[in-house]
């Protein structure tokens, strides 16, 4: 049994202390946004506006895929994009502090189309009150290669990128696929020397005058007094494709990374102080068994970190809360056993018998108290899958508590017992005072 424990312990140590102590660094434990800083955005998709030929689930997964592409093109490290509930999408952007840009990047539908000028009954361009041109409500259409009428939209884009035009500043250069190029040629031909408006999400971006018929396959450019960032974002949105349904933001949270880091640093020190006090208490009060408890709690800590490291468990503040509570329960299991052992020793049993009786008697209490905790955890994990912002927090707490309590039972029942049996069996220390009993 001892060998088994040592092998496990060695394995745990090996997994948490890799080559250059990456523990608690970005490559070690996975820290949640509340610990390392960053932003999370919760979007609600308006599924009533989807194309009726696809199911809700299809629309959602397509939207998520496109958001994924946008975020990747934006260059955020380790973003997570998750579907929550039926119509919500949670986007987590670690390390991103100013998210106003990210919000407009991700949430815009980015539906690109072109619209022709509206003409009055005399065939003259219509003007609004302010003297601006008025454009059609419908996207410009043209006959495709197969003779069918099609709207020219962002769907036919091959590629878009930001560029600098010497006269217009930042622009987005677009390149059509062959069908799009064909449609574009027809539309520009029809509108030669007339304004053709570029619309994005039903809002006019600009209305340049068509200077020449743009041949199939060649490039067009979108101008609109863009800043460099805006042009970049638009190019990203066009490349990732228009979202199938419009999104609205229903929640966002931004954690300043420095605040998080400062808080973690302090809390870490505080936890270390607390744990040292705890170990001292165990040592002074329970003496030799206390020492064994300290060792087995050390092993418990190593196992817990190893599990967090080995499995994709993101550690959040609430997860740490669960871990602290489970540490308390691990200590409690040891205390239960030792108190029982002392009772038996006072009752005049031999050391060996007292150890066995202590474990057996303490077992029912440990079992029943921990099973109630397991039940509560299971329910919280199950409820934690529902689609609200903080649901992940509750399940994070429950998962670490569950793992911690399971592990605490293992350390108390297997590790502490093995060490105690070894110690008693070796007859190295037989003075009862060392076991905290004054005879």
């Amino acid at each position: 049994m001892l060998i088994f424990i040592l092998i496990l312990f060695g394995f745990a140590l090996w997994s948490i202390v890799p080559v250059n102590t990456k523990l608690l660094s970005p490559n070690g434990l996975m820290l949640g946004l509340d610990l390392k800083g960053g932003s999370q955005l919760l979007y609600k998709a308006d599924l009533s506006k989807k194309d009726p030929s696809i199911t809700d689930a299809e629309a959602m997964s397509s939207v998520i895929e496109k958001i994924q592409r946008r975020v990747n093109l934006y260059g955020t490290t380790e973003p997570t994009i998750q579907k929550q509930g039926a119509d919500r999408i949670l986007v987590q952007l670690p390390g991103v502090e100013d998210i106003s840009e990210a919000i407009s990047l991700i949430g815009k539908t980015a539906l690109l189309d072109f619209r022709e000028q509206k003409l009055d009954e005399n065939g003259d361009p219509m003007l609004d009150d302010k003297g601006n041109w008025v454009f059609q409500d419908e996207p410009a259409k043209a006959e495709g290669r197969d003779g069918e009428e099609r709207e020219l939209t962002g769907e036919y884009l091959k590629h878009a990128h930001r560029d600098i035009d010497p006269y217009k500043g930042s622009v987005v250069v677009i390149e059509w696929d062959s069908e799009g190029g064909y449609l574009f040629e027809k539309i520009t031909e029809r509108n030669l020397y007339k304004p053709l408006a570029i619309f994005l999400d039903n809002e006019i971006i600009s209305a340049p005058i068509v200077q020449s018929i743009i041949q199939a396959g060649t490039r067009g450019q979108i101008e609109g007094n863009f800043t460099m960032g805006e042009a970049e974002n638009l190019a990203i949105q066009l490349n990732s494709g228009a979202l199938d349904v419009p999104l609205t933001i229903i929640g966002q949270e931004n954690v300043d990374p420095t605040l998080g880091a400062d808080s973690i640093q302090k809390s870490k020190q505080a936890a270390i102080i607390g744990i040292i006090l705890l170990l001292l208490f165990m040592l002074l009060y329970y003496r030799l068994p206390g020492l064994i408890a300290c060792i087995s709690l050390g092993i418990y800590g190593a196992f817990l970190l190893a599990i967090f490291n080995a499995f994709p468990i993101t550690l959040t503040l609430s997860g740490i809360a669960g871990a602290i509570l489970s540490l308390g329960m691990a200590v409690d299991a040891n205390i239960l056993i030792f108190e029982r052992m002392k009772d038996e020793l006072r009752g005049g049993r031999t050391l060996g018998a007292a150890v066995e009786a202590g474990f057996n008697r303490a077992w029912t209490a440990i079992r029943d108290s921990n099973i109630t905790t397991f039940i509560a955890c299971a329910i919280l994990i199950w409820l934690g899958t529902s689609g609200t912002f903080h649901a992940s927090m509750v399940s994070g707490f429950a998962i670490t508590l569950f793992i911690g309590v399971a592990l605490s039972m293992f350390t108390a029942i297997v590790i502490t017992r093995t060490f105690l049996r070894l110690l008693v069996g070796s007859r190295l220390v037989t003075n009862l005072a060392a076991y905290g009993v004054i005879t």
Partner: protein
Amino acid sequence: MIDFVGKKQWFFLISAIVMGVAIISLAAFKLQPGIDFSGGTSMTINFTPKVEQSESPQFQSQLRQEVTNFGHPEAIIQFQRESRDFFVRMKFISPEEVSELRDRLEANFQRDVEISVPLEMSPTIAAETARNAGIAVIIAAVAMLLYIVWAFRRMPKPFRWGTCAIIALIHNVLIVVGIFSILGQVANVEVDAMFITGLLAVVGYSINNTVVVFDRIRENMSKGISPDFAVTVNSSIIETLGRSLNTSLTTLCVILALFLFGGATIHHFILVLLIGLLAGTYSSLFIAGPLLVVWEKREWRQLFSWLPFVKKPAY
């Protein structure tokens, strides 16, 4: 041997007073809901050049005017001395509206304005969060009740054991919630999602504690150490006293250290654990077990009969 069970009315009285205060405070002050539960937008408005201390009152009143004109007279506006920016909390507004507000402020204050939004939550999501948290606690409590009833099925009337454990649990949760409602009133402490996590921890901790005491009562009952249930419960409490105090002390070491030296972001959360730990230790020793005795001996009416206002018969 100390007679804990014999002094149970004192323990009950203390708990009744504390719980009464908690209930009154909850009824009077309620809890100060954070944005997590009420919905809304919190933002920091940063002017460049920075607002001087001397001009802050004038800025504050002008900002109040602007925000009211923007359609949000309910907004809470605070000047933060250290960072020399304004913290504003209002009903939920969309990111587009935030940038609209920013443009307005820039135009009217003639300064560069930066708005960052640390947290915003639409009211529907907030309501859902609060509801789910409530459901989670209730379902978990019922499930634990059922398990305790099952685990103590060999005892006479196991349902009572479960109920007493749950009463102890409610006692602890109520005390924590009550204290936070007082804190909300006097120190503007808000309850957020972390508070709920803390409450869940308190729930877990109090059940754990109570079960350990009950386990000893169960063992002593089957040993038949005394025909008197009160004596059995009392000696069980005394036998587990060492364990209860030591476990609480060790946990207290960690929690107190985190409370005193830990980071600001977890301060309130740790306070929840701290109160819960103290209440949990107390209730597992002095409430859960004695309550079982009262129930067993049908002493409900005598319990508070010495109080002047309970003199009249219950029915």
